[in-house]
């Protein structure tokens, strides 16, 4: 398993897609942070928390995970991958874990940058900053969500082999279906896999407190449930498929 994990992480590092997506996550997160901290004149602790939790890694690692798995079919590399690692279940475990690890690493870098740059700007303007313990609290929450979304993306890619369908489907589902559901049935929406349950972990509200998100423990269980179900479906399909 260690060898498979190393190989999957090496795969991730050796394509430009990964670098481009990580760059986008860093860039987008930083631009929004800088604009927000420079243009807003009043910050309380809650709004600083919200600003530092604005790590876009989750979205990008979700898409990267789906692309990484579905891309094996798109580029027809699934054959050489399975030849090198014939145990397809172990292969999917390794891929899922590697994108979770990638999510943690990238999210750590992005969140740390947000905190550093944000704190420098806020202090220079004499505005509210957060104590180190609060920063650590935000950090672990961001890391957990990014790890989860990386794994979630891989599982989606294992089920939906078409890379374009997987990416467009995830974006539509995330931004159209889930947000619509938040408007219509917030009590159901808080259990959704991409925006609902993870918001219970991040513990900041993107709808100004209208939705009562899940407690972090419950949210973690719900997220674990989502990944488990999707992983089981993906593994079943991967094991049964003929690679012609």
């Amino acid at each position: 398993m260690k060898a498979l994990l190393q190989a999957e992480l090496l795969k991730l590092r050796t394509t430009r897609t990964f670098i481009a997506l990580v760059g986008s996550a860093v860039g987008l997160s930083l631009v929004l942070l800088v604009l927000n901290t420079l243009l807003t004149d009043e910050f309380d602790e809650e709004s600083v928390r919200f600003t530092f939790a604005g790590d876009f890694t989750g979205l990008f690692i979700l898409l990267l995970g789906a692309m990484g798995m579905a891309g094996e079919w798109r580029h027809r590399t699934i054959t050489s991958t399975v030849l090198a690692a014939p145990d397809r279940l172990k292969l999917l475990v390794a891929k899922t874990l590697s994108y979770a690890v990638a999510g943690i690493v990238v999210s750590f870098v992005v969140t740390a940058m947000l905190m550093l740059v944000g704190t420098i700007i806020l202090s220079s303007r004499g505005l509210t900053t957060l104590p180190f313990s609060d920063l650590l609290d935000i950090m672990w929450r961001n890391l957990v969500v990014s790890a989860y979304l990386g794994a979630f993306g891989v599982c989606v890619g294992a089920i939906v082999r078409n890379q374009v369908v997987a990416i467009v489907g995830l974006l539509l589902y995330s931004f159209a279906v889930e947000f619509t559901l938040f408007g219509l049935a917030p009590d159901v929406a808080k259990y959704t896999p991409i925006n609902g349950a993870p918001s219970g972990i991040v513990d900041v509200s993107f709808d100004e407190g209208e939705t009562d998100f899940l407690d972090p423990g419950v949210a973690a269980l719900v997220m674990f449930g989502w990944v488990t179900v999707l992983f089981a479906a993906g593994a079943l399909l991967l094991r049964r498929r003929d690679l012609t």
Partner: protein
Amino acid sequence: MPTVEVRDLSKRFGRVEAVKNLSFDVEAGRVTGFLGPNGAGKSTTLRALLGLIHPTAGTATFSGKRYEELEHPSATVGAVLEDAAFHPGRSARNHLRVLVATGQHPAARVEQVLLAVGLTEAADRRVKGYSMGMKQRLGIAAALLGDPEVLLLDEPTNGLDPPGIAWMRGMVREQAAQGRAVLISSHLLAEVAQSVDDVIVIANGELRAIGTLETVLGGEDGPATEVTAEDPDALATALKAAGATVTREGDKLVVPGLTPGQVGQIAAKAQLTVLGLAPRARSLEQAFMALTADRKP
């Protein structure tokens, strides 16, 4: 024990029976040609051997073990499949590094196989800029990474230029000489005839012939001899008297069922002068066409 064992292998895709009850062995130290026209079932058989597709019936194993049961699969079997694909954005060296990490091979193997296939200088270029021949060489490099005991090559000469084909022939002979079992599939008998010891011919998913190249080329109709004589009519009479069937093609007599030696003895006994005597071999194409022609059930 044969290195590669295929027993009663069948594979059905929906209503199409791609492989029907196929059985054969591949021995170590020999190059075996796996021949058949396009759509004969060659790739399906190789993929079944490699655990990429699930057989409907039968088994395909390496010394009794399925590919996925092998302790070190890529150190036991190296494969180049027809549609060998690589991530276009990854370099050849990084592609091989990934496979080395997965198969837990020594890192030094990357440079060794790159050198062996002549890709060292192009190793850091992204694969999307590679020619088909270079991709084929990269596929072979990947197959050789684990220094495997068995090599399965599916249409390996596709996309190779003449020097590349010559290199491939030399490479497979060298691999067999080192004791490896090499199974090389092709739809062109002429391309592999110079490098194979044995051949397995399939068509419509069925086994049509198996054996040494000479045996299979001889076909079911046995030996035949072409002879020219000073007095062909007298020789034809003598041959018929000896029980042979003789057909005439211009100045030449064709004698199926007899070797040149037997024809020479009959001519000598009849005190007739023979001007030319040669075995009649079916051409590669004739043999291949005859073996793979459609057969009515």
